[in-house]
């Protein structure tokens, strides 16, 4: 019978993204009487995000979860939602990135490459964690080597916050923190604990500098094959999946915090205003186009 959509995912089977997408597939299959189903391939088995985009564009893979950094590579305007402190909270973020009035044009901007963006999952709010002591203001980061992803925005962000950005594969961060090669790293609470970094960097400081987003992309031609009725079911179940993911993410975050605290990690508040001020130049210099500025303002005015 029906068509099974192959979805490439970079996370494990235990991750909220896999759970929400897997359930999405099951509900879609039910709602369309088996005409459409989704099979999620976790753990990058179909390729990392950079390749997954190419495969979706070529039609080899139907759907993929890719980060904003990857899409910004294709259309710079996606950078807006990747900037630090664009969103106050995960709710704010979800309201913006899944609001067709704000993102409609942006999400169809890649259709000449056969890519349609359907919406986004949160990656959670990222904060700094360090081994030597809490960070409360930018000056505390002076001379500290902080691990970043290979991305110019992340590099600039850490430099502006006062640290020394050190790109490194995430798998190597644990020993680097342990030995003092790194003084810290930045990520959400879930990764902080699942990678056991809380064992070697006991101070998690709530800089909340950035809330990352993972987009669901789909091959445009394949999406167009859906009947209006099936497409409506697809959209409806996708919205449910986003909500389920946000709930799962919150639970995972709470569990992670509890585990870290039980293991002796400490969570600290920071001088939010000082960091906000330090990061402003990055926002200003990144909003280079009218579209980018419009998106940024729309995001700001959607703040609760």
């Amino acid at each position, binding site marked *: 019978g029906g068509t099974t959509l192959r979805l490439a995912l970079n996370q494990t089977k235990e991750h909220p993204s896999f759970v929400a997408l897997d359930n999405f597939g099951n509900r879609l299959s039910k709602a369309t009487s088996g005409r459409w189903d989704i099979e999620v391939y976790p753990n990058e088995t179909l*390729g990392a995000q950079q390749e997954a985009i*190419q*495969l979706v564009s070529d039609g080899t893979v139907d759907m993929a979860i890719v980060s904003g950094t990857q899409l910004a590579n294709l259309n710079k305007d996606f950078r807006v939602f990747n900037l630090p402190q664009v969103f106050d909270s995960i709710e704010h973020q979800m309201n913006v990135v899944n609001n067709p009035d704000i993102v409609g044009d942006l999400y169809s901007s890649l259709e000449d490459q056969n890519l349609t963006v359907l919406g986004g999952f949160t990656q959670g709010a990222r904060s700094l964690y360090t081994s030597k002591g809490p960070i409360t203001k930018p000056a505390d980061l002076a001379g500290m080597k902080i691990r970043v992803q290979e991305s110019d925005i992340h590099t600039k962000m850490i430099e502006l916050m006062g640290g020394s950005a050190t790109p490194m594969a995430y798998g*190597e961060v644990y020993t680097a923190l342990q030995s003092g090669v790194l003084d810290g790293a930045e990520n959400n609470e879930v990764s902080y604990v699942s990678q056991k970094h809380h064992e070697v960097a006991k101070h998690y400081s709530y800089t909340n500098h950035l809330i990352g987003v993972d987009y669901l992309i789909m091959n445009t031609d394949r999406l167009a094959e859906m009947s209006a009725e099936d497409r409506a079911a697809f959209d409806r179940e996708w919205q449910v999946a986003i909500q389920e993911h946000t709930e799962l993410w919150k639970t995972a975050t709470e569990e992670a915090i509890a585990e870290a605290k039980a293991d002796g990690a400490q969570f600290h508040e920071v001088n939010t205003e000082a960091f906000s001020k330090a990061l402003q130049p990055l926002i200003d210099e990144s909003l280079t186009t009218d579209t980018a500025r419009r998106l940024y303002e729309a995001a700001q005015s959607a703040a609760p």
Partner: protein
Amino acid sequence: MDPATLAGLILLIGIVVLIALGVPIAVAIGLPSVLATMALIGLDNAVVASSQRLFTGINSFTLLAIPFFVLAGVLMNNGGIATRLIDAAKVLVGRMPGSLAQTNVVANALFGSVSGAAVASAAAVGGVMGPRQREEGYDRGFSASVNAASAPSGMLIPPSNTFIVYSLVSSTSIAALFMAGYGPGILWALACMTVVFLYSRKRPELQGTDRVTFTQLLVTLRKAVPSLLMIFIVIGGILSGVFTPTESAVIAVLYCLVLGFAYRNLTVRGLPRILLEATRTTSIVTLLIGVSSALSWVMSFARIPGMISDALLGLTDSPTVILILMMIMLLVVGTFMDPTPAILIFTPIFLPIVEEFGIDPVHFGIMIVFNLCVGTITPPVGNVLFIAARVGELRVEPVIRRILPFLAALIAVLFLVVFVPQVSLWLPTQLGLINGGG
């Protein structure tokens, strides 16, 4: 026939037939992979998926450690480091029965502890030890087989390129694998030494004759210290987190360059030739890793590993039986195939199965590498076997005859490695590399 089954058949038949025809293994894996992908998604998409996997399979910072360790090995061969390690080995075991053969074993282990490859060691150490043994009346087949049998210990004793390949396909920590390799690697050398001991005990002409004074001992060992210092730089650097494995490999290169120039065995004009030699070895492995990445992609796409594991688990649910089946299969495969392609092909299929039994992926890595190392010296084919015969200026047959007792001893050790996890896991567990995160 459903597309997934068709893809599976194309892979199985295509790879076996092409390898048997003598097609380079990389192509024998690459072509069936793209054809199997075609059976699933059509040729137009398949060529993109396959070439993309080939490219990204190589595009890894971890993998970069391999060219550097290979280059360090070539530099060592040309830089006078091998001779110093042999001298050190000689003063350590020079008084045992069969002293020159024992020296060969220990020198291979020492060479292995600073280099990532086995073939280089068999060539460098055997090239020096063979003639010396001939002068003292050793059977030539015996001395070549000692050299062959002991050289693969270098793939188990870190640093080891083979473990880097495994870490890549299994997502395990290189540091943990390296530490887990010490026990089995040392057991490998001890097994060889035992066979040499039993062989030489009743042959009066092979008794240890070298009597060194204490001063000689100190002088020789001191000369080897700079070469052995590399262990501390590479392994210490990785364990302490000061360097990533790739960075420690480049440090090894720089260190070998400095030593080679200090010993006046290297010249700037000679460097291009050395770089080219390292490029050849590296590229052979690189292409294999690239095409294997295309192979494992199409296998995941068609969900083949799941089908195989269901089939295997349908036969029996005893972990012991399945492990023994896997080890026998790998011994047969390893007899004909080099460790790298075999690791790349079989890890994605076997690892999920053994993980279901609760076997540690690091432990399984040691098993699979140990097993395939045995394959490199199992007749009728094997790189190490051929190199050892060649540096011994022999045809391969006399070496094959003499190597059988070594094989028997090493297969016994293999069983120990498979069924006593502590042989591998004790050291990395003590160091907090397993179950400690990171």
